[in-house]
């Protein structure tokens, strides 16, 4: 493996509650090269907060601490907000869950993608336009010229998510964080969008962190998987070895998914007393 793109040691995210601070991410450490890492877990496991913490998007009163959080050798925690602004989007970008809420409804698709580019580079008008159209073409949008002039409400969910991918990849980042990029989409469109992300990540030699609750999906699109429960990584393995997972929580999650060749009368349910002391 090449030198790590991202190196995180002892990441903790906490929020204050009337009963004191509650840690939602409790001491997470990992190294990421130019590879595809999947983070899986149920709601509340801290997987999305991990993604947000890397981009320093956890808002007060949330608190993020880490012994080390280095991206391409730069310590992210000590960067000024201004430097962070340069990094976000340009070097690390993030695809959110729902294109309906993440695209600006009163701006055409083309202008939004151009804005993402101009925030980090200063290409001329003609060059910008060419890059936007080229990017729309790369995310397999037919007739990019026509679509660039459309507003988000005029396009479908799958197309919206492709526009979002175009927007996130146009500054050519080296790390992409995708937080449930397809859970708002139909199954038939899901595969197309993930194949597209996969292809672009490979072609550009980027690192990918795919955050999802869907074990099967993550095992199909990642090299390595971390399974999170209650803010901790309970198991980490190569995607190909997921079916050999050891931890009772991972095994429980795998067993709870209905299968296409289903013959079981009842689905096994997680017995949470097995692994959590509390």
């Amino acid at each position, binding site marked *: 493996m090449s030198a790590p793109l991202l190196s995180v040691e002892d990441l903790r995210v906490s929020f204050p509650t009337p009963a004191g601070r509650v840690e939602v991410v409790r001491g997470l450490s990992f190294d990421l090269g130019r590879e595809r890492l999947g983070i899986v877990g149920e709601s509340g496991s801290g997987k999305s907060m991990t993604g947000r913490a890397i981009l320093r998007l956890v808002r007060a009163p949330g608190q993020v601490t880490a012994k080390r959080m280095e991206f391409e050798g730069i310590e992210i925690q000590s960067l000024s907000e201004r430097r962070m602004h340069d990094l976000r989007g340009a070097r690390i970008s993030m695809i959110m869950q729902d294109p309906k809420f993440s695209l600006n409804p009163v701006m055409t698709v083309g202008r939004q993608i151009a804005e993402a580019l101009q925030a980090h580079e200063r290409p001329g008008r003609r060059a910008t336009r060419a890059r936007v159209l080229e990017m729309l073409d790369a995310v397999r949008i037919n007739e990019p010229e026509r679509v660039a002039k459309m507003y988000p409400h005029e396009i479908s969910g799958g197309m919206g998510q492709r526009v979002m991918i175009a927007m996130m990849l146009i500054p050519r980042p080296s790390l992409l964080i995708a937080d449930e990029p397809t859970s708002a989409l139909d*199954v038939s469109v*899901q595969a197309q969008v993930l194949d597209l992300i996969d292809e672009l990540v490979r072609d550009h030699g980027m690192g990918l962190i795919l955050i999802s609750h869907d074990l099967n999906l993550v095992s*199909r699109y990642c090299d390595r998987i971390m399974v999170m429960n209650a803010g901790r990584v309970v198991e980490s393995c190569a995607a190909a070895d997921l079916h050999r997972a050891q931890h009772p929580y991972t095994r429980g999650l795998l067993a*709870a*998914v*209905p*299968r296409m060749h*289903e013959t079981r*009368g009842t689905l096994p349910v997680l017995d949470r007393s097995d692994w959590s002391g509390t």
Partner: protein
Amino acid sequence: MSAISLQGLDISYGSAKVVEGVSFDVAEGESFALVGESGSGKSTVLKAIAGLAPGWTGEISVLGQPRGHRPGRGFARRCQMVFQDPYGSLHPRKTVDTVLSEPLQVHGLGSRDARVEEMLRAVGLDRRFRFRYPHQLSGGQRQRVAIARALMLEPKVMLLDEPTSALDVSVQAEILNLLKRLRAEQGLTYLMVTHNLPVVGFMCDRMAVMNRGRVVEIAPATALHDGSFADPYSRALYAASGGTAHD
């Protein structure tokens, strides 16, 4: 007598026709799935049966009685619906107890206290949840309340609109097991809308595949085992869901 019978059903929202020429029969005690992508009209079919999409023509009958275009008291006793989002389908200012007692009150049924207790037990909710508000419950617990509410009037037919798609897989397993057990215990008929084919394999006997407002194929759930679908669209949907046709 079939539990649900649809004949040449067309459904429109205003001038837009969203469902065209849908016909199928669901036998009593059967669990039948409607599958397809968003916009295929599958939820609209449920809404028309429930009286929530009044712009339809054709024939709908439930347990042998023709349906009108609006919700009705008699109909509510025979057929109930469970919605997709347990966060949106429960009144935020009403306790579980109020939510469950309301149908009994509306229909003038007695021994409410005992019935609420019994129903909470049936859906696997501890009695301490009885006087809580929805925001004090988890997603899975809320969906249990929504299912309990639907069962309060002891209907025979249940319309399930993506009952587990808003839930985590581990919680989904609990709710699917619950629905399966309730169906066996109470002899219910299910008409379930879902986009998740493995869920159909677990829960249902047959399925209708919908695409652009039409039923393209009606297949037994065992088609999911070997991918023996006749229609090209069904096969594409099966492949996109991770199905492999040759094992």
